[in-house]
């Protein structure tokens, strides 16, 4: 089946709601698993990788949770398709670089996605909108329990699930949430928060995961340690930290509005001005300005705009989504022009931000 017929439309995807989705854009729990005795994908020869893929892929496809699925080998996807999957946060950049011997299976709702022969034989992830770490863990735990009946996992009673990189050993779990934190960035408190979170043994990364920039004030927070602690404890610990970050972000927004309303209105007004009127704009600038518009929506400055269309623009203005829509032979300059055209058109009916006479308390905002 065609990937683009199967994928949710960006609009549909952006309209999904979850708890705390003003600040938490999505939750994810992934498990790393390997087949006993088989060389890990990074070391296995192509023939062996294909053999593993042929064992794992049918097992994943037959899961009840995958009743309606998309399944493909990575060599059958174009580079553009793979990059679109990265921009949708369904696969990692590392997986997008794979070809023969690697594969991908995900369900219709895009809540369950399994990468085969990425760094490990299996990287299975449950995805949820908003803050839903427990639900995501339970979902992926069930998938894993089904798969262990069909596949013989590499497991040691002492050190747990055996993974290609020792950093994932034990539970093989990575629990993460994608957070939109413009308030903490504007209040210049973000570095303190990152340092505090790091001290707790958690990692803070950028928009596309490991080694990427925090574009659009979006940060990924995840656990780093996987051995010596049970999955539920890791989920619990991260949940606690996340609710603290949410509180700090809300406080930062409230304080900014109270103490420096002009600064906030200035940032949001300028963001709107550029996005609605530019004739050439880069992906990076777009993300950073859309982040401010999203903040404006949260603060009630755009009465005729919801969060979903802004989130949709986050997705469709990315380079590969533009290439897909227009032509895959676009230069960066041409993309910047088309991106600006799209933004002007989408924001044509959105009236400019209206500062409120009295700053609202953060609790009274539209959520």
């Amino acid at each position, binding site marked *: 089946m065609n990937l683009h017929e199967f994928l949710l439309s960006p609009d549909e995807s952006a309209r999904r709601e979850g708890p705390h989705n003003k600040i938490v854009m999505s939750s994810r729990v992934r498990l790393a698993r*390997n087949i*006993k*005795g*088989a*060389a*890990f994908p*990074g*070391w296995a020869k192509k023939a062996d990788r294909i053999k593993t893929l042929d064992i794992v892929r049918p097992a994943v496809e037959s899961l009840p949770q995958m009743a309606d699925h998309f399944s493909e080998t990575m060599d059958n996807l174009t580079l553009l398709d793979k990059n679109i999957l990265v921009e949708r946060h369904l696969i990692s950049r590392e997986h997008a670089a794979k070809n023969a011997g690697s594969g991908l299976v995900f369900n219709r709702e895009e809540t369950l996605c399994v990468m085969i022969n990425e*760094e490990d034989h299996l990287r299975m992830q449950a995805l949820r909108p908003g803050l839903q770490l427990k639900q995501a863990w339970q979902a992926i*735990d069930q998938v*894993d*329990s089904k798969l*262990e*009946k069909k596949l013989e*996992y*590499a*497991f*040691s*009673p*002492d*050190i*747990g*699930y*055996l993974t*290609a*990189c*020792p*950093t994932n*050993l*034990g*539970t093989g*779990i990575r629990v993460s949430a994608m957070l939109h934190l413009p308030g903490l960035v504007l209040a210049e408190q973000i570095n303190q928060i990152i340092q505090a979170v790091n001290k707790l*043994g958690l990692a803070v990364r950028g928009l596309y995961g490991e080694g990427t920039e925090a574009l659009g004030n979006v940060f990924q927070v995840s656990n*780093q*340690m*996987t*051995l*010596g*602690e*049970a*999955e539920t*404890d890791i989920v619990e610990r991260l949940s606690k930290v996340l609710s603290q970050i949410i509180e700090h972000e809300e406080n930062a927004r409230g304080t900014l509005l109270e103490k420096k309303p002009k600064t906030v209105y200035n940032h949001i007004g300028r963001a709107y001005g550029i996005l609605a009127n530019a004739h050439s704009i880069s992906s990076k600038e777009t993300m950073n300005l859309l982040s401010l518009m999203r903040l404006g929506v949260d603060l009630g400055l755009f009465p005729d705009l919801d969060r979903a269309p802004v989130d949709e623009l986050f997705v469709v203005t990315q380079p590969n989504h533009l290439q897909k829509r227009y032509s895959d032979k676009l230069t960066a300059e041409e993309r910047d022009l088309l991106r600006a055209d799209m933004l002007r058109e989408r924001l044509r009916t959105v009236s400019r931000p209206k500062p409120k006479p009295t700053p609202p308390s953060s609790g009274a905002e539209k959520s």
Partner: protein
Amino acid sequence: MLCCVCKEKEAKVHLTQIVGDKMQKVDLCEGCAAQKGVNDPAGFSLADLLLGLGATQEAEQSPAGGELKCPNCGFTQADFKKAGRLGCSECYVTFSEGLDGLLKTMHKGTKHMGKVPHAMQQSRELSDRLKSLQKKLDKAVTEEDFEQAASMRDEIKATKEKLAALATN
């Protein structure tokens, strides 16, 4: 800044590595860096420090033979140093000695506390049960409680059969 090895030439290669909350810095001149094999920053990975194969130590190691190799997949310690990842699940047995210290620095503990595959869980429970039954049997025999001993013997037989059935599945 002078090279911290030869202390003569200016240091041009600066390496900083953070492991846990410890930061290590090495400043080398180009000559010493090449000699220590750290002229390729990509090749000088986490694994060096983690496996205790610092650049200096490694230079002192004899290059000849004796290097560990995984019998299952042929992966060597040098491969791990290069890739920072292991070759297969058996490598954890092959390289267990070097890995121990590494796991201590990167994780909360070195004992798995999480999920266990169901089949593994069952066999673990059965073998625990077998041990306790054996103890009860011994006790019954010493106490000459033959009725109890006979029932323990039957239970042991049944448990062993269950274990065997699990192993063949």
